[in-house]
């Protein structure tokens, strides 16, 4: 068996008396969409933040692309091929959409201690940025200041920024949060388009989306992974039904 892209072992994160990540182990295989589900406050965002390097775990190890990245900063992990989107949209609101993505491209196009040539006229940045916008369906909105994009478009923009860093693993924290039905449908299409070409850890509340997209699902409750399996296995898991899904929902 090939080594997993991401392997988490015994991860622990405490906030005071609260254990937000409780001895959590997880492995993600190349090419899969691995959904992480769980009720609000289960520790999903906290998990993503530790994977991305925005939050330091209290214990445990994270291996990525064959090396231990537990002690690395977020920007270092980005250069190893990790990219994340945030549950609460995190973009550069005052910049046009294209600039948002161009900044992400630039971060991976050598160092930025270049003080002279205008970055906005740099085809080496603009073209890949445009391609990433195109991939998420925002090409026609490239010149719009990000703050003026709709909520759904801003979430697409965030995915474009993540894609622009050419990641080998995407960490998506509730990409459909706050979206209407149409916007959600578009995002599901977008994610389906990424499937197979990218390895993705997907946190999502929308169960229909999760069961439609995920290859495997891990269920998180109180910071612990209570089950991991295929969508069918998770549907059939009694503990999961009890703890989280609710019988009606699983149908």
């Amino acid at each position: 068996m090939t080594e997993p892209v991401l392997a988490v072992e015994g991860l622990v994160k405490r906030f005071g008396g609260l254990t937000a990540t409780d001895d959590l182990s997880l492995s993600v295989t190349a090419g899969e969409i691995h959904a992480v589900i769980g009720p609000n406050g289960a520790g999903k965002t906290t998990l993503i933040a530790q994977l991305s390097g925005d939050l330091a775990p209290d214990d445990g190890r994270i291996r990525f692309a064959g090396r231990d990245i537990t002690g690395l900063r977020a920007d270092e992990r980005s250069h190893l091929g990790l990219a994340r989107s945030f549950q609460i949209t995190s973009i550069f609101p005052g910049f046009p959409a294209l600039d948002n993505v161009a900044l992400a491209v630039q971060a991976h196009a050598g160092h930025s201690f270049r003080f002279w040539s205008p970055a906005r006229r740099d085809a080496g940045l603009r073209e890949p940025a445009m391609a990433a916008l195109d991939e998420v369906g925002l090409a026609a909105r490239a010149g719009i200041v990000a703050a003026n994009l709709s909520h759904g478009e801003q979430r697409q923009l965030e995915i474009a920024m993540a894609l622009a860093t050419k990641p080998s693993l995407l960490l998506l924290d509730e990409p459909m949060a706050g979206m209407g039905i149409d916007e959600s449908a578009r995002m599901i299409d977008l994610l389906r388009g990424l499937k197979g070409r990218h390895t993705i850890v997907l946190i999502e509340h929308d169960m229909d989306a999760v069961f439609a997209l995920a290859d495997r699902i891990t269920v998180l409750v109180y910071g612990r992974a209570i089950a991991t399996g295929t969508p069918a296995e998770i549907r059939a898991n009694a503990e999961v039904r009890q703890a989280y899904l609710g019988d009606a929902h699983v149908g």
Partner: protein
Amino acid sequence: MQALRQPRLLAQLILLLLLAAVPPVMTAIDEPFYTSLFTRIMIFAIAAASLDLILGYGGMVSFGHAAYIGVGAYTVGILSFYGVDNGFIQFPLAVLLSAVFAAVIGAICIRTSGVYFIMITLAFAQMLYFLGISLEEYGGDDGMPVYRSEFGGLLDLYDANHLYYLVFAVLAATLYFGHRLVNSRFGMVVRGMKSNSLRMRAVGYPVYWYRLTAYVISGTMCGVAGALFANWSEFVSPDIMHWVRSGDLIIMVIVGGMGTLFGPVLGATAFLLMEEYLPEILEGTAPGAGEHWHFVFGPILILIVLFAKGGIFGLFGGRERGDD
């Protein structure tokens, strides 16, 4: 002519041309004082524009930038004290020393942000201020006189026009370099960090090093302003590093227009002209009113900030493609 379609760029060029015309005009009407006044204004304009690089573009509110004016000025002053008047030695050394001070101070301050950054930059500047006071050999808190720099016969800084055009050239270079910088890859990173540093980290920027570099560039340029200031005043004292001076620089940037580079030039001009003439004007309205000029000055500054969105430069319209 791209400039003609951009009102702000056009305004900048015209105002720079007007500045270039100051010495001959003042010589013609026999008012040399104004040449000297505008030399001082341009020196602070250089410092304010430098501060704008990190304040306006980078969102880093340094409340201690007068310290670098002090480092630059004391470099010239102390060398002059030991008889080293050669500007080709003084200026590079002023650049080097302000860069070193900015790197050391910045390395610590950059780890903080928000109010903490304001407080710690202020604290370091005050440390340098008290260091200046403790330098008894160099006049302590009284300061000491300074001979103007010599440039091997190329320039005679005792000629007010030479000094003026040296300062003018440095200002123009500062603005041009600043313009290139804020639009370069590095500049985009600085602006991105102001907008959302969490996002910058997530896409792969080692934010600390970019912020530190921006801080050092800004501090170094302020150091050059300091070296020029020592020449202009023929005098250095710790007073130039006092925290009020750092506050003045921030006010110049905000009043002139943050994140515009040229706005701070206008801010410095408005600030220093008011400081110079408000007391006189008030004294004319009522005897004794002149000494209370601060009570008029403050509200005027507040009104500008409140009603001229984007500062004085914002009044010229045509906001450049903004980013925050």
